[in-house]
């Protein structure tokens, strides 16, 4: 038992360190990941300790990072690519969705692309344009990719290692406003769950909130407030956005009869729409209210002075819960 207090960012760093130690074919590549340790310091000290052949500073070219990493994977490497910010992933979109995602299907399983693509995502840190986006639906919509996002340091530590170990390509979204959250956990314990499973973060009986990444702590505070008001909310931390663990959500909704899905991404055609549709199919007769969604508005990510209105907060979640309970 080695209980350690780690921030989310430090937990990722520790997880990456373990992955580099575990398999000499693991390489980290991206812009500024070496001497600087990444703009969020997630790869801090790794180049110093593993050398510049294992932690590779690349030219400023996102398609180049992913395309070259894909080529290295064909040579037997397991690259972990860092895309510096969410809004910078689009130049690499073709390589991710047309090449990385499809190679296993295209070659009928003869070639794998065990890439992990780390993307700090989401808002709430007062950043400028293109630094606060939530592009997860683009990737969840693409067959061949696994898409995950941890919401807490312990999951960050374990899920990054599970992602690196996966033979499928994984898009690993890091909720950047949670990088400084701290938690105590046992770094030598086995992970509680496989990568694709959701976690019941708080048990409750009156309604279910499904959230992921940055919004999970928001949902937990909403549940705490609701508890004071006499409502028992169950909170599910999705963790995996592709595949989605619908069984865990279904089980919860069969108990509570009500579901609110929350995420930062714009609501239209977002993950919430998918979850609402599937749960409506699976739980039509168990639902006491329509599935509701609370998300970002259908606008480009706004300037920092407006982001508190755009991002779902506990009040907006509770408002949706109230509407669900009133139905």
């Amino acid at each position, binding site marked *: 038992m080695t209980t350690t207090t780690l921030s989310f960012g430090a937990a990722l760093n520790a997880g990456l360190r373990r992955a580099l130690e575990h398999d000499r074919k693991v*390489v980290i590549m991206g812009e500024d990941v070496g001497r600087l340790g990444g703009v969020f310091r997630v790869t801090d000290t790794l180049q110093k300790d593993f050398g510049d*052949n294992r932690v*590779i500073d*690349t*030219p400023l*070219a996102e*398609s*180049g990072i*992913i*395309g*070259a*990493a*894909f*080529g*290295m*994977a*064909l*040579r*037997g*490497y397991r690259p972990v690519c860092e895309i510096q910010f969410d809004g910078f992933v689009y*130049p690499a979109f*073709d*390589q991710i969705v*047309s*090449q990385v995602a*499809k190679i*296993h*299907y*295209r*070659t*009928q*399983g*003869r*070639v*794998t692309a065990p890439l992990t693509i780390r993307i700090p995502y989401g808002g709430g840190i007062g950043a400028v344009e293109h630094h606060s986006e939530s592009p997860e639906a683009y990737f969840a919509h693409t*067959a*061949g990719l*696994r898409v995950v996002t941890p919401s807490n340091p312990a999951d960050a530590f374990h899920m990054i290692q599970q992602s690196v170990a*996966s*033979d*499928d390509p994984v898009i690993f979204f890091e909720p950047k406003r949670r990088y400084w959250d701290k938690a105590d956990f046992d770094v030598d314990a086995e992970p509680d769950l496989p990568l*694709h499973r959701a976690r019941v973060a708080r048990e409750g009986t009156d309604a279910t909130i499904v959230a992921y990444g940055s919004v999970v702590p928001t949902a937990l505070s909403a549940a705490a407030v609701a508890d004071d008001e006499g409502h028992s909310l169950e909170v599910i931390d999705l963790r995996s956005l*592709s*595949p*989605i*663990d*619908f*069984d865990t959500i279904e089980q919860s909704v069969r108990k509570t009869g009500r579901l609110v899905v929350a995420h930062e991404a714009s609501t239209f055609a977002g993950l919430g729409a998918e979850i609402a549709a599937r749960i409506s199919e699976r739980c039509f007769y168990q639902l006491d209210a329509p599935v509701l969604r609370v998300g970002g508005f259908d606008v480009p990510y706004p300037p920092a002075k407006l982001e508190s209105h755009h991002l779902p907060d506990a009040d907006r979640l509770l408002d949706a819960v109230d509407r669900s309970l009133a139905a």
Partner: protein
Amino acid sequence: MVDTIAYPVQLIQPDGRRVFRPDYTSLVRDIGPDQLRDLYEDLVVARRMDVEAVALQRQGELGLWAPLLGQEAAQVGSARALRPDDYAFISYREHAVAYCRGVDPGVMTRMWRGCAHFAWDPSSVNVTNPAIVVGSQGLHATGYAMGAHLDGAEIATIAYFGDGATSQGDIAEALGFSMSFNAPVVFFCQNNQFAISEPVHLQSPVPIAQRAAGYGMPAVRVDGNDVLAVLAVTRQATQRAREGSGPTFIEAVTYRMGPHTTSDDPTRYRAAAETEVWKARDPIDRIRRLLDREDLLDDVFLARVQATADDVAARLRSGTVEAPDPAPLDLFEHVYSTDHPLIDEEREQYAAYLAGFAGIEEALS
């Protein structure tokens, strides 16, 4: 020192006479009469294979085909410079490269017939399946070469692409990455003068090989219809790669005699007179004239070449028409390397749906 951008390397003239270039002739010194004849055979087989595939498309056996007519020397010359452990990243027109690397002609059309997205196991021949998004493979070759470099493997990686692909960011990024990491990769551009209908001057106002200079990369322009010259320059580039001297850019100046694909109509965008000019530079005629001048053509040899070409074409044809259709549930296979609940659920539901027809078919029969 000859300026190989302004004056492309040539070792055989269109009339079959040899050109003496000490720097390049020395690279093909081992190509004696037998090896010259083998190269000729490869060119003839490549064309025969291509003609067969076009016919198969016209007969409805293939959905599409991208003919290589006219580019045989560029492909054969470069592919024959490779060693078995070198790795080629190809685009969709490199049928002769695939053939030279040992791909079974019987599977070559599988993708074009629509049976699968792939035709062969890449690692069995060290050739990727064709890249369709032009230029993407330049980066893959670079990454593979970076990996080989880290492994200390003395191999070369070669990326094939066309003139149109040089307008893509991925090729630019590949040139940058390969120089930054001294990656043992050869960029082999077949400048066949057209990107579907767009002439090469729309992609670049300067010779394409000149672009490499901006990256500090050595570049050479070669007569792409001269198999011997292509062999020489590719040998030089792969040797540089293997010995750790980094990437090289080759522009093979050639001409796509046919359409972009079997769906294309080149008469809409290019003059017959231009095509005639290039016909006089035909890569097969050229080496045939050389062989003739050097008294290396005889009936026995020509009959052997014809027999090989016919045999390869027959294998391509039978492999095509006999290829079984994939089973409906193959649709769901290999999306992921490990189980995925969504795919599993959809496979199960669709299997049940299909099974529902079994009773109906029985009742109707």
